[in-house]
């Protein structure tokens, strides 16, 4: 019953991820001050999603977990969120008069 399947990540990996996260934070703060037109928001959210993915995959061990359900739950919850956001925002952007 001992827990042989559990994945022990290397400390180096954790430090690397941490470093990547910090760099991304600095990057996102910097990029925001540069004029990219419409793309500022896209870039900011893109970086945030990248960071979130790192945390989920490595720190939260989604990448190596033997548990298939974890990914399924994560995907369905995010899908549900997008559904809420998409369908309600769609109402606002298709309203003719303010």
């Amino acid at each position, binding site marked *: *019953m001992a827990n042989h399947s*559990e994945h022990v990540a290397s*400390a180096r990996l*954790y430090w690397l991820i*941490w470093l990547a996260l910090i760099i991304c934070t600095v990057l996102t703060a910097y990029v925001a001050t540069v004029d990219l037109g419409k793309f500022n*928001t896209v870039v*900011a959210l893109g970086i*945030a999603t990248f960071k979130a993915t790192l945390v989920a995959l490595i720190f939260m061990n989604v990448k190596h977990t033997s548990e298939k359900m974890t990914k399924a739950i994560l995907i369905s919850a995010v899908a549900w969120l997008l559904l809420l956001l998409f369908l309600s*925002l769609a109402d606002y952007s298709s309203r003719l008069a303010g």
Partner: protein
Amino acid sequence: MSDSHAMETPLAVEHEARPELRHHFADEQQQRNAASLGMWWFLGTEIMFFGGMFCGYLVYRRMYFTEFAAASRTLNLPIGAFNTVVLLCSSLTVAMAVRFAQLGNRKMQVRMLLLTLVFGLAFLGIKGKEWGDKYKEHHIPTFNHYNVISGEGALTNVKGNAELLGLDKITDPVKRQQREAEIQQRTKIFYSLYFALTGMHAIHMIIGVGIFIVITWMAHKGRFTPEYHTPLEIAGLYWHFVDIVWIYLFPLLYLIDRRGA
């Protein structure tokens, strides 16, 4: 579900040797899997909990983009970024604590957990300072002195805001007054959402700190072994989740439009 672990007695007598195994589980593997599955579903729930507010935020951000951008510029970017870093550090220490538990290193486990608490509290402290500043700037919608037009918290104090809001082009004083009233109202929505979102996040942090105090104490008592550290693991999942929420809050609230800042 695995093996059909028959129990001779319905009561948990045979489990006494392994106090952490609850009577209705067949074995520890089952129990551990149940706990982490439960936590993951709970985090799914949490996504939707914040999701409701995100939805409101996005609707209004689209509707009143300029006012939101102008108000966003009054948030303290360096402090916000620094706080993000603090929170990321705490995520690292949590991950490390779990790793040390897997390796059976109790001393480092406790150290990492203590560091997590320090970072967590630091985050809350810094957040508190930011809120305090907002109070001084009269940016909290709750209070009657709410004011983003004049005084310490005038939006126009921030470089570029007058242009963004179009105030620089209005000469007619009546029109200007009208526009200012509009700004005053719409930014209230921004700040309402700002406080609702960061407040709800802070509540999650406070709960997280509470949980980690217990976890640290358990680690200190040597409750976690390489075979069994489920409470630490699922508390860690929670902590990382709260971190991820902030990872989104930071750009959404602080970085709406910082061009030319």
